[in-house]
């Protein structure tokens, strides 16, 4: 009897295989995303990262975990949120892997699935930002910070007052948000884009994987 081999290579359960399909779709959208296959685990990305010292999973390990079929544990990590997208890893990767863009893809997946602690700072900052620019078409810095701190730590707003006042006195703080003229047209565009965002091919990558045992796993008789 040949040993039983999973139908989908390296995948343990349904949840993980869904995450994998989602991840592979996101990576396929990145120009040059397919280079993720060429990772040699050299660790140049980790070494180049200015904030890797505070990460729980190193950038190199992210690709290793993806290969091992443990995407869920990446989504729970602090790493994807610490990345400030300075692109140092992307520039230095000898295999040309778009590490920063892959981290963006993971951020989007984690946000969609809600896999982060409650009142998580970056999630709230991004949400507030998106809310404001959907509304006005332009960003509004004071509004962004007020929304952000109201939802995370309202008391901190007071400690920011001296800096805000200083900036205001120098004329660097806009009191009112500036809006674009074609707000209505912008929301029509956004409504259509929302629909476009949802059009996703149905698990294209898993279908391409051949069914049956992995070649070479069974000793030829």
């Amino acid at each position, binding site marked *: 009897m040949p040993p039983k081999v999973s139908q989908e290579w390296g995948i343990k359960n349904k949840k993980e295989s869904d995450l994998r399909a989602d991840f592979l779709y996101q990576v396929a959208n990145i*120009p040059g995303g397919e280079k993720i296959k060429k990772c040699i685990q050299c660790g140049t990305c980790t070494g180049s990262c200015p904030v890797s010292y505070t990460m729980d999973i190193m950038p190199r390990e992210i690709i290793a975990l993806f290969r091992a079929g443990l995407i869920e544990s990446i989504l729970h990590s602090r790493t994807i949120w610490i990345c*400030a997208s300075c692109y140092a890893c992307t520039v230095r990767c000898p295999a040309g892997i778009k590490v920063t863009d892959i981290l*963006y893809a993971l951020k*989007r997946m984690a946000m969609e699935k809600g896999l982060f602690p409650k009142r998580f700072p*970056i999630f709230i900052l991004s949400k507030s930002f998106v809310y404001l620019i959907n509304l006005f078409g*332009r960003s509004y810095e004071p509004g962004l910070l007020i929304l952000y701190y109201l939802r995370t730590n309202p008391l901190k707003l007071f400690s920011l007052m001296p800096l805000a006042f200083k*900036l205001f006195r120098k004329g660097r703080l806009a009191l009112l948000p500036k809006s674009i003229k074609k707000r209505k047209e912008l929301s029509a565009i956004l409504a259509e884009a929302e629909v*476009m*965002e949802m059009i996703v091919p149905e698990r294209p990558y898993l279908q391409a994987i051949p069914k049956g045992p992995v070649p070479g796993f069974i000793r030829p008789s």
Partner: protein
Amino acid sequence: MTYIYYPGCSLESSAKAYDLSTRWVFENLGITLTELEDWNCCGATMYMSIKETISLVFSARNLALAERLNGEIVAPCSSCYTILNKTNKYLKENFILRAKVNQSLRRDGLTYHLQVKVRHPLDVLVNDIGIDTIASRAKRSLTGLKIAQYYGCQIVRPEGIFDDPENPTTMDELFRALGATNVYFPVKVRCCGGMLMTTFPEVALKLNKDILECAVANNADCLVTTCPLCQINLEAYQKKINKKFKTNFKIPVLFFTQLLAYTLGCSPKEAAFDQNLVPIPEKILGGSL
């Protein structure tokens, strides 16, 4: 060739000085900047981490508007510059995303045909106008001024369109030609933390401390930068850094256009020096006219 000016949101508020000085420099070098009519936010790094297609639609709207004017976009903000270039790249290489974006833009009668080039003012000044032309127009000299040239991340990375991603020298050459001395500054493209200053301040404060420490230890008189977020992080948080790390930083951080405008002969008011939180030292102000 017209240059279409895309200021971006932060140049309307916290980096007003960058906006004023960029306009002044281009006007005085005889180049017209036409502001893009009804531009919107580029989406920045934060929209990209929520929705991919919508964030591309946001920045592509600007590109589509600019395409009608048949020119190149000049985007001073590093983040806008990267995002607009990234949008161009994504739409060029991924026809499904391009179709999705154009389908959305059609709601307002717009389409984007990938014909707009996105440039940074530094790129335009050095490569289109030329360092020699700028140096010949200089009214003041920067002799004796020691500058730490801080490029930040997103102007040279990920593509390195007009300069090396590891060791850019465009700004160094520009200010050397104007008489300044560039100090040894190996962290010129190291990350300042960006929005981490709001979300994980303890991480960002350390990154900024490293940059300031390097500049001060190499005897720089000021830092010169190209990015609105780097400027505010490095300048406005010096007090906090001093408190946290028991340091004593008080070094001015200028936009490169501010210093350039002042060298080309504008008044301190026109260079918007009054908007800097750290007072501008006499060494810069006293440049011979």
